[in-house]
């Protein structure tokens, strides 16, 4: 997704763009995502600024001819739910900080909650409504942005080396089916970004953080917003390698309800985990009791690209002239893709980036972390 957005904004800035993908379009983390465009789960800081920028760009793209429906863009809003008064107090303090940073966050009293979400469990303490939270269907979004970019697309081609001139600058990439010459290379390999960075001699400590999604049978629209429990925010920010789950529930344009979210650091292990999926189902039925009568059709899993400080790597790599990174967005890559793409295009064309890129510097990690 991030690569597609980089291609789109770079092409629109007048650059000649070639996209190289080892597999098929959306064959990696994008195809295993939920398509969240969230501001609600982000504390004030550089990631929230990027999310706000990206949200504006997504809504602009969605307003372009036919693109909004094609990518199933829905400005549906998010509802973060607190189970206890103590959780609610923490959630409202968090929302106060976000509001100061430009987020719209409306408190929802317990007795108004069911106006927003009629099927929510009774006796919840309250919630905060985030109208800026939105959703796309990630595979469609990546494919349509690539098509709209007009970029040359080479799928099924693995990058085997980053070509460099004797003095060091990047000259393109070598693939298993020939060389591609270019004065700039953007590493948008997501969870596999560490591999590409390594090929360029510029280590980047991207690690996989696994997540499962549970998919229900198609239903009439019963879950209107993206609804999640307040403890999700703490899970997202956690550094633990152990399993964490917190319920995230959302309806989709096609009908099925998607249930997340789990986080665990188990490498690229793809085997099914019943305990994880059971925890997801339990969490979701706590929020929405009617789901206990609904059939789950399938699950899927993916690997979020995790960097140690939970911020993506965006911008030029000072160690290798001509190399840029746009990866490591963890679970927010779909949402943050548009802003990332625009920032990368600004760097590539020599214009001042719309956000300060210092917090996203790819070479910010000490060598021992890499």
């Amino acid at each position, binding site marked *: 997704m991030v690569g597609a957005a980089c291609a789109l904004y770079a092409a629109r800035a007048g650059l000649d763009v070639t996209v190289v993908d080892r597999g098929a379009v959306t064959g990696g983390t994008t195809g295993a995502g939920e398509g969240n465009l969230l501001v609600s789960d982000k504390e004030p800081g550089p990631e929230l600024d990027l999310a706000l920028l990206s949200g504006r760009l997504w809504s602009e793209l969605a307003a372009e001819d036919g693109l909004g429906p094609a990518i199933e863009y829905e400005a549906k809003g998010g509802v973060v739910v607190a189970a206890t008064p103590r959780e609610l107090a923490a959630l409202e303090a968090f929302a106060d900080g976000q509001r100061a940073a430009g987020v719209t966050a409306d408190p929802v009293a317990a007795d108004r909650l069911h106006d927003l979400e009629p099927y929510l469990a009774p006796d919840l303490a309250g919630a905060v409504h985030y109208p800026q939270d939105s959703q796309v269907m990630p595979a469609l979004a990546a494919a349509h942005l690539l098509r709209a970019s007009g970029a040359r697309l080479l799928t099924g081609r693995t990058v085997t080396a980053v070509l460099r001139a004797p003095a060091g600058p990047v000259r393109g990439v070598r693939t298993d089916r020939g060389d591609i010459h270019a004065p700039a290379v953007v590493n948008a390999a997501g969870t596999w970004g560490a591999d590409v960075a390594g090929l360029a001699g510029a280590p980047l400590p991207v690690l996989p953080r696994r997540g499962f999604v549970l998919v229900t*049978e*198609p*239903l*009439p629209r019963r879950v209107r917003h993206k609804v999640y429990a307040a403890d999700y925010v703490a899970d997202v920010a956690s550094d633990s390698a152990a399993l964490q789950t917190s319920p995230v529930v959302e309806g989709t344009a*096609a*009908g099925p309800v998607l249930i997340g979210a789990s986080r665990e650091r188990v490498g690229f292990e793809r085997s099914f985990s019943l305990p994880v999926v059971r925890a997801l189902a339990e969490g979701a039925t706590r929020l929405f009791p009617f789901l206990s009568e609904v*059939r789950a*059709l399938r699950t899927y899993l993916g690997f979020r690209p995790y960097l140690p400080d939970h911020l993506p790597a965006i911008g030029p790599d000072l160690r290798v002239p001509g190399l840029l990174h746009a990866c490591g967005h963890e679970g927010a890559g779909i949402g943050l893709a548009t802003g990332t793409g625009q920032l990368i295009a600004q760097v590539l064309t020599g214009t001042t980036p719309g956000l300060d890129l210092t917090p996203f510097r790819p070479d910010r990690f000490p060598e021992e972390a890499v």
Partner: protein
Amino acid sequence: MNPLRRAGARPGPAFTVTLDGREIEALPGRTVAATLWAAGVTSWRSTRGAGRPRGVFCGIGVCFDCLVTVNGRPNQRACLVPVRPGDEIRTQEGTGHDD
């Protein structure tokens, strides 16, 4: 050729189920999908968007195309659910849930 004879099958006695209230004959051991096929029915669901007809596609429980309502429960995979005497099978429109 009759597939029962080809397989050398000797199924137990036939029983009756209903499809939208109409009685059809079923053999023990068959799935709902096989029962409907044997009765000459190849489509028993309409899609959520365009209302297009659907029946068996993969036949092995993977594609979720053959969804059907059995005994009041929607979205069952006809290709996996064994048919039982007296089953009330209903064609399914859309999600199968009341909108």
